[in-house]
């Protein structure tokens, strides 16, 4: 049994496997299938200052080795989360993180402040990369200036571990990561979904109500892996890698590319026990190759 603990800033995780926001609900949805306290961290659904109904349906389309979603940050708002959901989940024996989303800097700050008061939430993931909302969302994550602006503001208001989730829909993700690092982020996570589209040729109509949506799943892995590698070569803060991780081998690839932890998203839909398999698989890999700790493989890709 290797040492699986890993750190993201001040956040200590018992293993490097978290669940990606929007794909694992509040954890409870999966507790019939697995012991969710075994997971390194659970990042709950994107939370905004106010209740959001999200986009009209259809919101999902299947694509080769992947899927598009257009959920659009449906959630009941941070106050509802604090009053009704937090009490239910706060005593889960793992790190519960809130994915904080917004349309304006003020919204982000207000939401982060409220979440900052919750004892059992040790970190937030600031979502500046959601492609499924018209205002704000991804726009913040596609330029260095706006990314730095929102991160600086939240940094002032939020004292615990601040992870910033980056958008892959950019020319140079390493630059954005550096801007965010400069603005005080403790960590960056990537990638959020890639903007895509699907069409019903017979009906000559888009398959999603919003025409475009966010692509996730196995198909995006090569792109996500490349970005994680680029970003971890560019910043000093720890990187959380995700995008298309379906099994332990995929997760190990992200660790080798420089991620200090990983998140699993779409794969939960295909196998609700995948997180446990990935944790066990990483352990088996470390044992097989004679590594004592997961930290021994982080960033250890040999590129001559």
């Amino acid at each position, binding site marked *: 049994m290797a040492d699986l603990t890993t750190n993201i800033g001040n956040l200590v995780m018992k293993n490097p496997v978290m669940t990606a926001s929007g794909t694992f609900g509040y954890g409870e*949805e999966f507790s019939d299938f697995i012991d969710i306290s075994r997971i390194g961290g659970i990042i709950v659904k994107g939370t905004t200052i106010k209740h959001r109904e999200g986009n009209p349906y259809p919101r999902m389309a*299947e694509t*080769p080795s992947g899927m598009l979603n257009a959920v659009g940050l449906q959630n009941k708002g941070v106050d509802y989360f604090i009053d009704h959901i937090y009490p239910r989940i706060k005593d889960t024996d793992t790190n519960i993180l809130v994915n904080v989303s917004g349309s304006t800097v003020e919204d982000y700050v207000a939401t982060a402040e409220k979440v900052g008061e919750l004892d059992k939430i040790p970190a937030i993931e600031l979502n500046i990369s959601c492609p499924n909302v018209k205002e704000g969302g991804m726009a913040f994550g596609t330029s260095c200036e706006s990314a730095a602006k929102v991160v600086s503001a939240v940094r002032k208001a939020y004292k615990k571990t601040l992870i910033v989730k980056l958008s892959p829909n950019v020319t140079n993700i390493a630059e954005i990561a550096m801007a965010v690092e400069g603005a005080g982020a403790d960590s960056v996570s990537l990638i959020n979904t890639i903007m895509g589209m699907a069409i019903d040729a017979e009906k000559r109509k888009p398959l999603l109500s919003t025409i475009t949506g966010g692509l996730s799943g196995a198909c995006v892995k090569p792109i996500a892996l490349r970005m994680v590698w680029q970003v971890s070569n560019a910043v000093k803060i720890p990187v959380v890698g995700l995008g298309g991780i379906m099994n332990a081998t995929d997760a190990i690839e992200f660790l080798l590319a420089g991620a200090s932890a990983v998140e699993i998203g*779409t794969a939960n*839909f295909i196998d609700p026990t995948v997180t446990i398999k990935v944790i066990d698989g990483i352990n088996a890999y470390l044992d097989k190759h004679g590594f004592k700790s997961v930290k021994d493989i982080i960033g250890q890709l040999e590129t001559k």
Partner: protein
Amino acid sequence: MRKYLLDLTVSGNEKLSGNYILMKLTSEERLPDMLPGQFAEVRVDNSPSTFLRRPISIHFVDRDANELWFLIQLVGDGTRKLAELKKGDIVNVMVPLGNSFTMPSLEQQELLLVGGGVGIAPMLMLGAALRNLGYYPTFLIGARTKKDLLQLDAFENYGKVYMTTEDASCGEKGFVTNHSILTQKFDKIYTCGPTPMMKAVAAYAAKNNIDCEVSLENKMACGVGACLCCVTDTTEGHKCVCSDGPVFNIKDLKWQI
């Protein structure tokens, strides 16, 4: 209700008339409890175009044989792959998912179960459950043509069966809402089938002040209420078809009927 992730064994996979299969799955262990209206998320192996699971209603649970039945219409790669499975093959399912049809609270109710096309799938389990509670439900089954009328014998075990076909090849001609049985009085209607059919049934129910539950479909990813992909509009805003449904009372939906 507790959900399970199970590797079940195909104990039968019969090609029915039309483009349907009746798949029976079994297990060494007792199958978990399931309610009428619930569904399973079925993994389709070895289909390059089937990334996500496929939601399939629970058609019937044969407790004696310890068998779970699916009635499946072959529409694309995933369902066609399921049709190729042979006795002894393994199918991975998440089950049981979703809510269920509401059992009537009063005795002596006249219950109408309306199924269209493959929408009859959950109606068999529902009919059996109602019969078990002492009701004698009426089934009204609509199809395009005779060969799309399935499992009639099975339905007859639990109640009276009426049919419509669009081409008059069996039962009365037309749509279910044209059937003469609707001149009788019903206390509750349960329905599953194509959306236009369900809306017509709902309109009939609303007009006649009959309590009515419909089983909806939508594109699903997780099947457990986690991803919010499968929502439908309700009077309380977006609700998940997979976890708040698939069964909804029409008074909670925002259908223009």
